């Protein structure tokens, strides 16, 4: 991969972006008067802004680079992460869960757990979540610095410190509002920066028809039926018929139900954006509004990967480079596309969009971290009853410390790549069962704190055991699994299949064990304590007199209908 020469016009665009990002923070600084302004935007964000931020906070490096890589590796089936995974989960959180998150006045997801269950459940979630955000933001920084080093020859430390400093400044100045406003800016930048890329790429391969034709040859060459890369459901009958190595049940249950609902419904990083909305109705519409553009993102991020794959195998202009071990470097799909199609000028816009995606991912983690740290750890266990000004100050200091810790993580990643893989694995174990806890917490009043805590713990252990007992095909025991036994119990056709099934087992164990242990432990919270926290004990939100399609349920139905249509088109 040859490095790109940037012209002055490209640098100019990048600098303009930096100036705007910082000015937004600067302009907002005078509105940051209380800790609620800083951590929750004073619950004053209109629905459409919260919605775009909800989407954008998740648009980090892993999303854009990773989805394009999956698009190249697995084809249009990657869209399941959206049309089966994210969209239904976003509709669910908006319609069914937001009334409790927003209505309980909890300031964070761990705080909801404290109100609904008990202190230990909150502590478990708060500590694991806070650690995870630091590492995610560090990994995001590391990926950015590595990519910009490879593409532009930028110094690793320079990329890290510049991006970290900018994120730091705008969050310290303007808190969550600043992060949210910048996420809206970043959202438009990513969309408007990638549209021309997809347009040029598709034009070059002869449109969707040309792409299908070229990818069918790739499929056959890899030993699959011709449509394996360009149809999303037709080849999911058996795990050996598609490059993902997943069959429909593992896909729908593992990815759709457990992993996506777990992420979109319980991850404070995204839920925080909805909690900042200016009313209950706005909070409920936040994920629904986000779902509309989310549905179209496969065209922006998966298609470039498919295009570069088609070209790599048919001597096109865009060619994926090889990794040192001789396999294709799928993570380079987006950078290769940018370098191939964008002339100086638009290249600056494309790289700025990439930079924006890295920064929004980082900022999302940092704002979630400072809130959870300040409210759920500092205020709960270190210093109770301080003045509001004190917690606002702690929030700002925490932002600085959080970013410094992320920088440390980014450097750690350069030295010990395995540690990062290991940590991500541990977080996956902790996250997998979470949705079961929330589901039971919100819809079953008998679920107790002991039940929830032990369910979570056992679910996490189940994930670890499952991982330790199984291996993906052709993998050696270690970080990929199989570390518990010499002879693994089961070999999955792919790593993805193993992940989905790890999640399914973890969720099931958590769900069953929470019920069992709740039934044998006394209920410590009365119906009165649980009002506003559990479905059957909460008055239904009053629908303002609006047309049916403007109410959350109606809007959600429309979103689901559209997602179903997309699934059918690309079946």
């Amino acid at each position, binding site marked *: 991969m040859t490095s790109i020469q940037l012209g002055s016009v490209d640098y100019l665009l990048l600098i*303009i972006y930096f100036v705007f990002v910082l000015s937004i923070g600067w302009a*907002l600084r005078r509105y940051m008067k209380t800790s609620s302004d800083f951590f929750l935007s004073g619950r004053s964000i209109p629905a459409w802004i919260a919605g775009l931020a909800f989407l954008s906070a998740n648009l980090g490096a892993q999303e854009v680079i990773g989805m394009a890589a999956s698009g190249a590796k697995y084809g249009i089936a990657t869209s399941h992460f959206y049309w089966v995974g994210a969209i239904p989960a976003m509709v669910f959180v908006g319609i069914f869960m937001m009334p409790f998150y927003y209505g309980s006045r909890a300031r964070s997801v761990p705080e909801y757990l404290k109100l609904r269950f008990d202190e230990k459940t909150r502590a478990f979630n708060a500590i694991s979540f806070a650690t995870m955000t630091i590492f995610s933001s560090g990994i995001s920084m590391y990926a950015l610095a590595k990519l910009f080093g490879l593409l532009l020859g930028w110094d690793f430390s320079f990329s890290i410190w510049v991006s970290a400093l900018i994120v730091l400044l705008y969050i310290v100045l303007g808190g969550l509002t600043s992060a949210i406003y910048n996420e809206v800016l970043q959202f438009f930048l990513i969309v*408007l920066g990638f549209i021309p890329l997809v347009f*040029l790429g598709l034009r070059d391969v002869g449109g969707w028809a040309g792409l299908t034709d070229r990818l069918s040859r790739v499929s056959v060459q890899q030993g699959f039926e011709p449509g394996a890369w360009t149809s999303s459901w037709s080849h999911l009958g058996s795990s050996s018929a598609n490059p993902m190595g997943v069959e429909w049940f593992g896909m729908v249950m593992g990815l759709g139900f457990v992993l996506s609902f777990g992420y979109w419904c319980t991850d404070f990083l995204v839920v925080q954006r909805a909690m900042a909305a200016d009313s209950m109705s706005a909070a409920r519409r936040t994920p629904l509004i986000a779902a509309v553009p989310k549905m179209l993102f496969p065209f922006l991020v998966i298609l470039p990967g498919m295009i570069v794959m088609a070209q790599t195998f048919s001597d096109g202009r865009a060619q994926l480079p090889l990794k040192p071990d001789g396999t294709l470097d799928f993570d380079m799909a987006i950078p290769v596309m940018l370098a191939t*199609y*964008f*002339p100086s000028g638009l290249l600056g*816009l494309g790289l700025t969009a990439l930079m924006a995606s890295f920064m929004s991912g980082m900022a999302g983690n940092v704002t979630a971290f400072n809130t959870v740290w300040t409210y759920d750890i500092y205020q709960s266990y270190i210093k109770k009853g301080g003045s509001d000004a004190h917690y606002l100050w702690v929030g700002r200091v925490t932002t600085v410390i959080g970013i410094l810790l992320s920088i440390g993580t980014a450097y750690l990643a350069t030295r010990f790549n395995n540690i990062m893989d290991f940590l991500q694995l541990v977080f996956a174990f902790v996250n997998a069962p979470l949705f079961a806890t929330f589901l039971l917490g919100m819809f079953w009043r008998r679920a107790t704190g002991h039940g929830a805590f032990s369910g979570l713990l056992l679910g996490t252990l189940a994930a670890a055991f499952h991982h330790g007992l199984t291996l993906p095909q052709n993998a050696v025991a270690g970080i990929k699994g199989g570390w518990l036994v010499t002879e693994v119990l089961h070999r999955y056709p792919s790593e993805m299949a193993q992940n989905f099934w790890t999640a399914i087992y973890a969720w099931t164990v958590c769900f069953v064990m929470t019920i069992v242990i709740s039934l044998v432990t006394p209920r410590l919270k009365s119906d009165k304590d649980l009002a506003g926290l559990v479905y059957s004990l909460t008055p239904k939100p009053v629908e303002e007199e609006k047309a049916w399609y403007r109410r959350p349920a109606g809007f959600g139905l429309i979103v689901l209908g559209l997602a179903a249509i997309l699934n059918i088109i690309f079946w």
Partner: protein
Amino acid sequence: MGLDIRIPVGMMFSIMGAILFIYGLTSDPRIYETSLGINVNLWWGLALLVFGLVMLVLGRRKAA
């Protein structure tokens, strides 16, 4: 909140669009071999400029 986000979004894209548009007018046409012979800076710059101005108008109208 006192700041309407459409104003900075509109300003940024208007400026970026204008820069790309002007660059598209003045740059050496040979650089567009990469973009299949299309002067993408000119056209996409124009699109961004229009988008930016629409955002500005929407933001202003609400403020007024």
